[in-house]
């Protein structure tokens, strides 16, 4: 898909040229899942884009000051929407599993 480039050294992508791409690890997972599923043919890119645009438009229309702008929140929601629409994984299943994960005992890395 892309040319194999050096990871470090003079030929490496200029890190000084970009800022941190993901502000939190989950953002890169959400990004990676969408790209992986797209590459595997799970959905088309226009389908995903439509869902993403709809999520962003909803946020802009609501102008909810309690919910600050977060691109990857919309990205994740769009991914869930597309998978839900297709019956691949329902939003309810994700919510249920997330609640289960939230109840893991203290000491797990989610409880700092």
């Amino acid at each position: 898909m892309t040319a194999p480039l050096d990871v470090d050294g003079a030929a490496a992508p200029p890190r000084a040229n970009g800022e941190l791409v993901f502000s939190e690890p989950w953002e890169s997972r959400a990004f990676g899942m969408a790209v992986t599923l797209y590459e595997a043919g799970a959905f088309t890119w226009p389908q995903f884009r439509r869902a993403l645009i709809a999520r962003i438009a909803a946020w802009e229309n609501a102008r909810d000051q309690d919910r600050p702008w977060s691109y990857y929140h919309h990205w994740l929601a769009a991914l869930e929407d597309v998978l839900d629409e297709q019956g691949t994984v329902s939003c309810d299943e994700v919510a249920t599993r997330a609640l289960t994960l939230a109840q893991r005992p203290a000491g797990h890395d989610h409880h700092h």
Partner: protein
Amino acid sequence: MTTSSESGETPSAALRTEALEQLLTERGLIDPEIVDAFITNYETNVGPLNGAKVVAKAWTDPEYRRRLLADGTSAIKELGFGGPQGEHIVVVENTPTTHNVVVCTLCSCYPWPVLGLPPSWYKDPVYRARVVKEPRTVLSEMGLDLGDDVQITVRDSTSEVRWLVLPERPAGTEHLTEEELVPLITRDAMVGVAKVAAA
């Protein structure tokens, strides 16, 4: 239960992401190692360096420059850069009197294969809204002061057209080779919010 910080709220995005990844993995729809590989690829291999190579070639090869401005997508593909979000790239050229700056008011269309993942400011609704209305002011705030004689064109990316700016080759770089030019070319210059400096 010890999740007081999250009681009464919907699960955090981090937890939902983890939940989704578990479910997709259990159903054999994704392999976490392949997801890792994609992320690593985008973080380390795909990025503004590809775009910089395109620009440096256009600066040093007039025939390539012509092809690039005529059909960006296929000229970029010639160098081996393609893939998702790499379709429909249109290249516009900055000159001493005309300046192009790219925005995506609708969403965040961005030519990943040549510029990597978009920077956070590009996705920010404030940038998206303001650069259309007052580009000169926004560019000045980002450190790029353009004279009043420079005509600014704001290019709005869509799924049909993803813009890539061909920046001006700076004076004083005439002796440099294509390879020596590449490190000078920044992502911001290819979005049109900065110029390329000679060194």
